[in-house]
């Protein structure tokens, strides 16, 4: 079974540019989450999808961040325009709807804003 995949693995952009991160969850997992780890800090929750619906987006930093999950499969996280403080590692995770509580994480996308 394929795990959670994320693309790209690393992105370097200039301040003010736009970047779109993609996450493909494990097949059949209706729950999809985005997290971010800023250097030296703990992993922080950004938002949670159930299928295509946003269930909790309380962790989204501001309106420069837009997450979508059209069709309830893969998800994208767009940052527009990017700021220096957006640099970090963005993780995606997925889990079954009514199964065990563990989440399966992707390898992350390292975003560097210069």
């Amino acid at each position, binding site marked *: 079974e394929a795990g*959670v995949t994320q693309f790209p693995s690393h992105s370097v952009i200039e301040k003010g540019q736009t970047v779109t991160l993609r996450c493909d969850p494990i097949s059949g997992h209706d*729950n999809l*989450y985005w*997290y971010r780890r800023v250097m030296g*800090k*703990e*992993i*922080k*929750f950004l938002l*949670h999808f159930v299928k295509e619906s946003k*269930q*909790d987006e*309380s*962790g989204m930093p501001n309106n420069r961040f837009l997450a979508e999950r059209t069709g309830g499969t893969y998800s994208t996280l767009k940052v527009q325009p990017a700021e220096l403080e957006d640099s970090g590692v963005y*993780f995606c*995770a997925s*889990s079954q709807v009514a199964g*065990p*509580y*563990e*989440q*399966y*994480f*992707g*390898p*992350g996308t390292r975003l560097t804003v210069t």
Partner: protein
Amino acid sequence: SQKIEQNSEALNIQEGKTATLTCNYTNYSPAYLQWYRQDPGRGPVFLLLIRENEKEKRKERLKVTFDTTLKQSLFHITASQPADSATYLCARRAGGFKTIFGAGTRLFVKA
């Protein structure tokens, strides 16, 4: 605030010894705690979940305890191996499926 606190200092132990990592929580009573392992350049990998009514849980060489009086969970790796070297994260759920992570403790096991 409802934080998870882990010892930020790295833990260095000799191969074969038992590693013990600590997770403390304050101002709330989580229904359960989770432990994850994270290797450099990779996402966290789920290891164990322990509920508040479970005092201890084991999985192979791993053992987790949950002391609601002390508001603490201990994570033990027995007969540690260099391959156990990683960062170990404690986490809890906070409403729905939102997960809050501790900063993690780095473990180094020397051969």
